[in-house]
């Protein structure tokens, strides 16, 4: 079992580093795969969070309203630098993408067509999907410690991905057994 990293030995990032890092994550994610990019940078490169901490935050970010990745930026930023950190991470994540999206939409409304990038974007999307699968494989290897987590993983994938059940319905079914399984032994609520 991986220890949860509530005591991290990594130095706390400055506001500028938070903004710069999330800017880097955002710009790398053309074609999609923003979650995978976030993990790649936040967990693997910067070691700001353990895989478990990142994954549980990601699920909470999905349950809460708002774009998942903006929520994740708020989560990471506020962990280190409170409200200022949340704002810095959020600003870093969105500023350049807003500029790019605006430039693209100005071009679109002027020429009345999607810029001739379709094929390139199709390729980028295939790469982004690959990055997402690879994230699932890498994190899956770490948390598949027995039969129960494997069953939970497969059940969640089938209900949400294959059967297209809504997130809340799926979590209502799988979250209670997951919490029961993971509850620290000997602890009281």
């Amino acid at each position: 079992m991986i220890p949860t990293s509530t005591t991290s030995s990594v130095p706390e990032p400055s506001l500028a580093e938070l903004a710069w890092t999330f800017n880097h994550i955002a710009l790398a994610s053309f074609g999609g795969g923003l979650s995978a990019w976030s993990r790649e940078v936040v967990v693997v490169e910067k070691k700001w969070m353990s895989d478990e901490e990142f994954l549980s935050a990601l699920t909470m970010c999905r349950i809460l309203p708002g774009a998942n990745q903006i929520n994740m930026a708020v989560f990471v930023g506020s962990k280190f630098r409170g409200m200022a950190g949340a704002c810095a991470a959020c600003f870093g994540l969105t500023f350049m993408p807003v500029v790019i999206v605006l430039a693209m939409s100005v071009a679109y409304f002027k020429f009345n067509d999607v810029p001739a990038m379709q094929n390139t974007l199709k390729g980028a999307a295939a790469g982004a999907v690959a990055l997402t699968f690879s994230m699932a494989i890498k994190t899956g290897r770490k948390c598949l410690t027995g039969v129960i987590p494997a069953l939970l993983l497969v059940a969640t994938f089938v209900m949400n991905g294959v059967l297209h059940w809504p997130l809340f319905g799926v979590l209502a079914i799988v979250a209670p057994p997951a919490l029961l399984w993971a509850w620290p032994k000997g602890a009281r609520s």
Partner: protein
Amino acid sequence: MKDEGLNLIHILLLFSSLSLLSIGGGNTVIPEMQHKSVGAYGWLTDKQFADVFAISQAAPGPSVLLVTIIGYKAAGLLGALLATVAMILPAAALVFLVSRMWNRAADSPLRHAIERGFAPLTVGLVLASGYVMSHAADHDWRAYILTGVCTVICTATKTNPLFVVGGASLVGWLGWI
């Protein structure tokens, strides 16, 4: 000009409410966003909505920046900025409060249970989103092979993911998929 002022008010009200309704991510409110911005306010046509949706998916950064484009079409640069802030701020404020509680509860058994127990669920959800994305991107067999090769490279080697996505874009640009 008067129209633009009214549009700004509509932008503020529409996106700040959608922000808090977007439970499960920005994509969950897209039908409502389309209904209002195409049908009720007439800011864009159906075709334009579909096209700017594609732009927002492909552009780097969060795909919720679709609202930036809608705001731009409705009320220019000011509309774009207002739509972006209105869509982000309310939900982000809520998440901020939750993250504060979460960080204070570092040693509670509930937090430990969530961290350990939600990990397999999240991996299942990530797998599901990859699966749904590969279907949405109207993959044919060549795209599936490209995805498969890239997945192996990303998983088995330490190649910078930027090279993988860049390489895949190049393959697409050359018209091979």
